[in-house]
């Protein structure tokens, strides 16, 4: 048992160790201050935060709907809401192109109001939001299950309207779960690659996020790719440590 657990830990540790062993440390300073890294970090920050915001905007209402109401086809809607979690991101990217691309279903109307998504930072954020909003839906649903409904009943019995109960009781009670979901969604958005490169393309300073920069560097300068990769490792690890297992409910 313990041997297998050690194996499990090593499974994650070894690739990180490999990156550490291979990284050209003498080039760290130069690489971290290079245009690729700085622009990549900037675009990644904007894209991932934008994606988290978008995810909250659509994920919270959907989570509430699925967790609190029952309607015909709820199972199907629930499956659809979680689809981006299992879909290969490149498929998500093609789907987004066929929906919001220049020739997509909504491409015409979107352009008419001046909204162009392919090859724009906004498009990269939409791609990242698409794959990360299920985390919010899941978090809200899980939160609702463990919620003490008597608190809401009490508010309602004192004459609070449904909307008032939602705003003043339900959502504040769900805040920790929503926050944890948002951080996970943000982390997922930070690592997004396939949907982004398919839907938004790859242009430095515009749509080239850190993962895209790593991929491009890997083609011709693997050393630079390892350093950029380690930046992402440190960032992701930081998020998870900050979360302290909240998502799986084993906070320590």
């Amino acid at each position, binding site marked *: 048992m313990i041997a297998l657990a050690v194996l499990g830990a090593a499974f994650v540790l070894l690739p990180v160790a490999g990156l550490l062993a291979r990284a050209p440390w003498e080039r760290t300073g130069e690489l971290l201050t290079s245009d690729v890294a700085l622009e990549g970090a900037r675009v990644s920050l904007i894209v991932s935060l934008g994606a988290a915001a978008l995810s909250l905007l659509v994920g919270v209402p959907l989570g509430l709907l699925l967790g609190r109401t029952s309607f015909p086809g709820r199972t199907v809607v629930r499956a659809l809401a979680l689809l981006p979690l299992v879909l290969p991101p490149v498929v998500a990217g093609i789907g987004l*192109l066929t929906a919001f*691309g*220049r*020739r997509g279903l909504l491409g015409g109307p979107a352009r008419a109001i001046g909204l162009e998504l*392919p*090859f724009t930072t906004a498009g990269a954020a939409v791609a990242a939001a698409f794959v990360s909003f299920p985390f919010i839906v899941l978090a809200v649903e899980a939160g609702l299950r463990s919620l003490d409904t008597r608190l809401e009943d009490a508010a309602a019995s004192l004459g609070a309207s449904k909307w008032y109960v939602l705003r003043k009781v339900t959502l504040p009670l769900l805040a920790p779960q929503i926050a944890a979901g948002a951080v996970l969604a943000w982390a997922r958005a930070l690592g997004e690659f396939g949907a982004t*490169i398919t839907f938004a*393309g*790859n*242009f*430095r300073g*515009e*749509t*080239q996020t850190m993962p895209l920069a790593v*991929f*491009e560097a*890997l*083609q*011709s300068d*693997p050393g630079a790719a390892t350093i950029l990769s380690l930046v992402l490792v440190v960032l992701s690890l930081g998020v998870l440590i900050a979360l302290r297992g909240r998502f799986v409910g084993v906070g320590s």
Partner: protein
Amino acid sequence: MKVRAAFLVAAMLSANACGSDEPAAPDSITVFAAASLTEAFTQIAADFEGQDGTKVRLSFGPSDGLATQIQEGAPADVFASASPKWMDAVAEDPGVVDRSDFARNLLIVITPADNPAGVDSVDDLGRPGIKLVLAAEGVPVGDYARELLGNAGIADEALANVVSNEDDVKGVVQKVALGEADAGIVYRTDVTTAVAGDLGVIDVPDSDNVVAVYPIAALAGAPGPARGFVTYVLGPGQTVLRDAGFLPP
């Protein structure tokens, strides 16, 4: 549980034992080839398999990426590059044999079939507002395209119009064929029957064009059939390459 594990181990051991009885000659080789060779090499590999009996496993990608993978120890037996630069890299480490140039290629400008931006010449690529897609720098066709724009004297204007640097030449074709970009620069061999209907083609004047030279080689230490494949590409394979629009070496 234990019984099942033991059975599995026994099965694996016996499978190994069977394998060791067979002759040492490999029944398959792995060919790493530039993305622009996708259609031609798929055909050549099928022909070679029919003749030689050796199975050919193909891996297509940007030449720079393939070179890196080979240097990282990817199990390639043959490397076909869209640029001497990346063959040079592989020749230095881990080393190649039987290297020779097997084809040349030229660049063209492609637009979506309906040409929404009205791109009619190379010079139009420098017009403000054109959405131009190129392959990334380091990818042979990306470097060639930048050279072409320089030859045409519109490098600054055209590069300001670039909205995406694609991972390989097929990425450029896709973005244009889907109609997301107004124009792209690819090899003329990339306008295959599969995408020809979605694309408009603008020829590049000879004075601006760049000739891409394709070298092929077997990796040092590769089995015999790998060298056989190289010979095949230089021989019977030439017809397929010519049909696909490649120029003789």
